[in-house]
């Protein structure tokens, strides 16, 4: 049976390491996630739909998904600009900025939450200049977008950087010699090479932003129906001991994560196929 399950190898330890890994994976990740699915399944269709279509829940999806989408879009634009700057230009402090891009990966979300709130509050470093213009960032949906943009930025930049290095500069030069304008070169040579990576980065940033909790709750203000994200609603349901309702909302978010994980894998496979097809 083993011989059809795996290809033969003289290296030892397959059974032990695979057994330990799957056991540990099951204990820490799979069984707990199964508990979530079972809890949701135990509540019956009508209760399930009642929880999911509650106006407060629907308002929270709108904010969570809308703000995550907007933040991922902002990140795609500025992420491209930053990745381009880091890959193509030499300027003082380039290596320093390149290293600092990963800061949101390493910085605890609670810290970025309180720091962003302090910066964008009405008396904050940046907020004080926005307030006279009538723009309120902290404690509004704009604050949610700002927090989610910070969280998603490294995903987009780090996805695009290697793809930009792949762009063949001799193709760009050839196109320019043949009379192509800057924008034409961008649209026909650079964008097609970078597109799979850009979409992957967008999806990664979006997936991370939808579930984000720590950095958002400080800056959002957390008003029901207005600035309340879905993860916060789950926490509130738990605090009220409505375990089934919390599980149902968690289940929906989990399904979304599955879909996004699947699309990330498909996008990456697509990107690899395009590279192979173009002979690189």
């Amino acid at each position, binding site marked *: 049976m083993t011989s059809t399950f795996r290809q033969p190898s003289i290296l030892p330890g397959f059974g032990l390491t695979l057994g330990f890994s799957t056991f540990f994976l099951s204990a820490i990740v799979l069984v707990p996630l199964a508990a979530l699915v079972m809890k949701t399944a135990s509540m019956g269709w009508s209760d399930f739909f009642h929880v999911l279509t509650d106006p407060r829940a629907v308002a929270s999806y709108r904010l969570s998904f809308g703000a995550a989408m907007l933040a991922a879009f902002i990140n795609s634009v500025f992420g491209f600009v930053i990745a381009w700057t880091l890959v*193509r230009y030499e300027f003082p402090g380039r290596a320093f*900025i390149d290293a600092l891009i990963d800061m949101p990966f*390493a910085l605890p979300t609670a810290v970025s939450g309180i720091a962003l709130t302090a910066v964008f509050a009405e008396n904050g470093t940046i907020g004080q200049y926005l307030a006279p213009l009538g723009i309120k960032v902290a404690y509004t949906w704009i604050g949610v977008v700002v927090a989610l943009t910070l969280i998603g930025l490294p995903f987009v930049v780090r996805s695009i950087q290697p793809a930009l290095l792949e762009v063949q500069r001799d193709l760009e030069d050839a196109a320019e010699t043949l009379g192509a304008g800057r924008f034409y070169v961008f649209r026909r040579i650079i964008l097609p090479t970078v597109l799979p990576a850009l979409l992957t980065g967008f999806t990664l940033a979006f997936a991370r932003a939808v579930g984000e*909790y720590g950095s958002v709750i400080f800056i959002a203000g957390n008003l029901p129906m207005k600035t309340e994200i879905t993860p916060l609603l*789950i926490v509130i349901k738990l605090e009220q001991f409505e*375990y089934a309702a919390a*599980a149902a909302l968690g289940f929906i*978010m989990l399904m979304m994560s599955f879909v996004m994980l699947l699309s990330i894998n498909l996008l990456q496979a697509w990107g690899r196929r395009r590279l192979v097809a173009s002979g690189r």
Partner: protein
Amino acid sequence: MAGGPNKALLAEIASRPGRDTLASTLIKWSFIGASLVFLAALLFAPLITVFAAALEKGWQLYFSSFKDPDTLAAIRLTLTTAAIVVPLNTVFGMSAAWAIAKFEFKGKSLLITLIDLPMAVSPVISGLVYVLLFGMQGWFGLWLQEHDISIIYALPGIVLATMFVTFPYVARELIPLMQQVGNDEEEAAITLGAGGLMTFFHVTLPKVRWGLVYGVILCNARAMGEFGAVSVISGHIRGLTTTMPLHVEMLYNEYNFVGAFAVASLLTMLALVTLVIKTLVEWRTGIRKH
């Protein structure tokens, strides 16, 4: 050419060989400018604010906020949690990487996807699942109460939730690296009579050690900084089940901003140290990830 001297000059500049035409220089600096402004608002300003707010009332108050016993308890709890979680996830990561990178078997890509799953799950859900398992209404809730074991609102729950969140970090650094370096040297070692463990520690590990360092420090940073998952499961008992990020939230909600930003400044320094090590590893190996 009839548009006057300026236009002629621009056309002349644009026709010069090389990349550095006036237009490309303008584009270059507007790209650099846009990047810097964006990063300054979103990244540099918050970083500086953490330290500025922590030191707002002077160094003395800054240091005295670390004398608070609850703050010290939070730091201890965070260190304890990381000391349990990081080694366990490192052992898991090495074991999973060995099975996945060294052998071909059915269902491998499914296994990789499942290992990556915690990355895509909201931290709140990572905490929620354990409440559903071990909470009073959960699968094991009654049994645990009868045997007087507390998992929720206690250290074991915090450790489990942190473990869930940081689960993939070491494995996903090691797997691609071990696949890339191949099996030849390991097969040679085994053929020459070395045991499995000896092969792993003397042949495989030296080849992937920088990737391992990289995975471990990222895992550690995330473990010490995790907020959402731990927040759901900790119960926020002051001085007992508040980790450093939760303590930041508690002080902040009590309007003790100097205290909150003082603890936050420690976490920020941890993040900066993590980035420095990460950058050194990247320079050393030429790997570039994420």
